[in-house]
């Protein structure tokens, strides 16, 4: 067992876990932040995407013990004060989700990406979205929502 501290969404969590415990599992089971979803557990589906020091990362390819000294942001931090972000609002308005399992990963990926590239082309959006699998195959409306959010940010 290792004992260490994690900084998640600006709060500190004292964690006692085996070094092999994945960040996504520690977030869900130890920090009780269940908004981060766990899909494939080998870095393919993108459902567990969180931000590490502002950059998107697969939480299933990181051991929580590695994150001492890093700042982690999860989906729980995005709707600040209960108000959805522009991207969340756009996903709502464009019906950019069906079952919603992949949605937290998509929101985290694009919260970061739209900061880096605030006015992406549709091709760029589709390219980045290729890292997040949606098994409801609702990509059309997800793309529309992201472009809508990008427009609103302009």
């Amino acid at each position, binding site marked *: 067992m290792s004992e260490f501290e994690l900084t998640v969404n600006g709060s500190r969590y004292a964690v006692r876990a085996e070094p092999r415990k994945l960040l996504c599992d520690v977030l869900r089971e130890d920090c009780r932040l269940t908004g981060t979803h766990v899909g494939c557990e080998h870095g393919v589906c993108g459902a567990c995407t969180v931000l590490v020091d502002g*950059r998107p*990362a697969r939480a299933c*390819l990181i051991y929580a013990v590695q994150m001492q000294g890093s700042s982690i942001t999860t989906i729980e931090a995005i709707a600040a004060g209960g108000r959805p972000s522009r991207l969340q609002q756009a996903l709502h308005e464009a019906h950019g989700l069906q079952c919603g399992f992949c949605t937290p990963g998509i929101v985290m990926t694009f919260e970061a990406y739209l900061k880096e590239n605030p006015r992406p082309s549709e091709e760029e959006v589709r390219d980045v979205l290729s890292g997040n699998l949606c098994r409801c195959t609702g990509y059309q409306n997800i793309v529309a929502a992201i472009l809508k959010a990008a427009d609103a940010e302009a």
Partner: protein
Amino acid sequence: MKPAAFRYHRPRSLAEALALLAEHGPQAKLIAGGQSLGPLMNMRLAQPAELVDLNSLAGLDFVNENEDAIEIGALATHHALATSPLVRKSCPLLAEAAQSIGHYAIRTRGTLGGSLAHADPAAQLPLVAATLGAEIVAAGPRGERRIPAAGFFVSLMSTVLEPDEILVSVRVPKAAPGERHAYLQFSRRRGDFAIVAVATTLLVDKKGNARNLRLGIGGAEDKPVVLTDFASGEKPDAVARKAREAVNPAETPRVPAVYRRELVEVLARRALLEAMGK
């Protein structure tokens, strides 16, 4: 899909990391971005007893310029390579290939050193390092040594690095004035490893002929293949046919050897035409 238990080490200096490798030998495995090792450990294809995390080694993510090369630290991410103005200007083939790796959230974690040391025969960075004639710098208990990329890759996921060595940086020659390049890969889905990938650099003379042609091929064999033995002005069709004949792909259940050969020829021709038209 949970990794086997391991002991976690987080050295603060290169000397400390080397000491851990010396102590634990082949039981120890280095982790940087974890984008290749992570899946292998989750699937228990890799079960290192000692995991040595390099992420606290300060200053290993640099991108520096000197007269004829760009020096890049092993911990520089694919995203950093793809977006660095220095890399884009002086080693545009490297930047372009890095941009095609995996997905956004993979590129922000995966590292140059990790990809080279992992040595997947279909990966972008081993192919580009071999094509550009990069030099790989490894630190070990006997000091530092420089290894030409052409002699670095041994076979599938195997390199000449010793168990007690750490890949610390890579020296990539700058593109010559007027040099053109292309990187093309074929994979079934965006972000997958290539079935075949091709990288090329060349100059175009006043008659429009290719000179100083270097053609790298990934995915066709167990390590990158680099061809440079072309006559000045050799036509893309002829180069592509030579490339097809030069490779000896394995028969695999899902990809017949003849299919990879065909891809080598098609991609080589397209890459040359693209580079010459640029």
